[in-house]
């Protein structure tokens, strides 16, 4: 859980940007939209458990 989370997200971001550009230029608008949506979902699946863990830790640590 160290820095590779950030690199993964950045990689997905850059990849989705490139893919959507290519798809857009080759005329497939909806595919470009779908790939960007897929990229968004992947990153969400990575980040949400960490956010949940963050708030759980805070709740336990500070007895909120």
């Amino acid at each position, binding site marked *: 859980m160290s*820095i590779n989370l*950030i690199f993964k997200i950045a990689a997905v*971001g850059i990849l989705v*940007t490139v893919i*959507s550009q290519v798809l857009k230029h080759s005329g497939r608008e909806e595919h470009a939209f779908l790939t960007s949506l897929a990229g968004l979902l992947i990153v969400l699946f990575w*980040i949400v458990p960490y956010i949940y863990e*963050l708030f759980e830790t805070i709740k336990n640590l500070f007895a*909120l």
Partner: protein
Amino acid sequence: MDIIKIAMIGLAAALLAIQVKGGRPEYEIFITMGACLCIFFFLVTKLQVVIDAVNEMQSYIRLDAKYVAVLLKMIGITYVAEFSSNLCRDAGYQAVAGQIEMFGKLSILVISMPVLLALLETISKFLS
């Protein structure tokens, strides 16, 4: 040292976020959130040391556990409010960030009310 690691994470995330900002701006928020999470998990270990010290201090001097719990709760609320309001401010939504901070301040005020009442009670006891 830890601080160097934290600085590296922050800088790497900032540079990557700028890189991705051109193409797809929504990933910028994800990257900054990921960096905040990374740094938080380093912070927890340091925080645990502080909280253990506070608990140990409490055993030496006769201090009502309720007040220390209120103190810790305040710190927790401040941290969560600060974390989320800064993220909203990064995303460009100042109003939402302001509301979160306002709610944080008010909930701290609510939590500290019993302590204030207890203080006034002791004072009135002295005076009467």
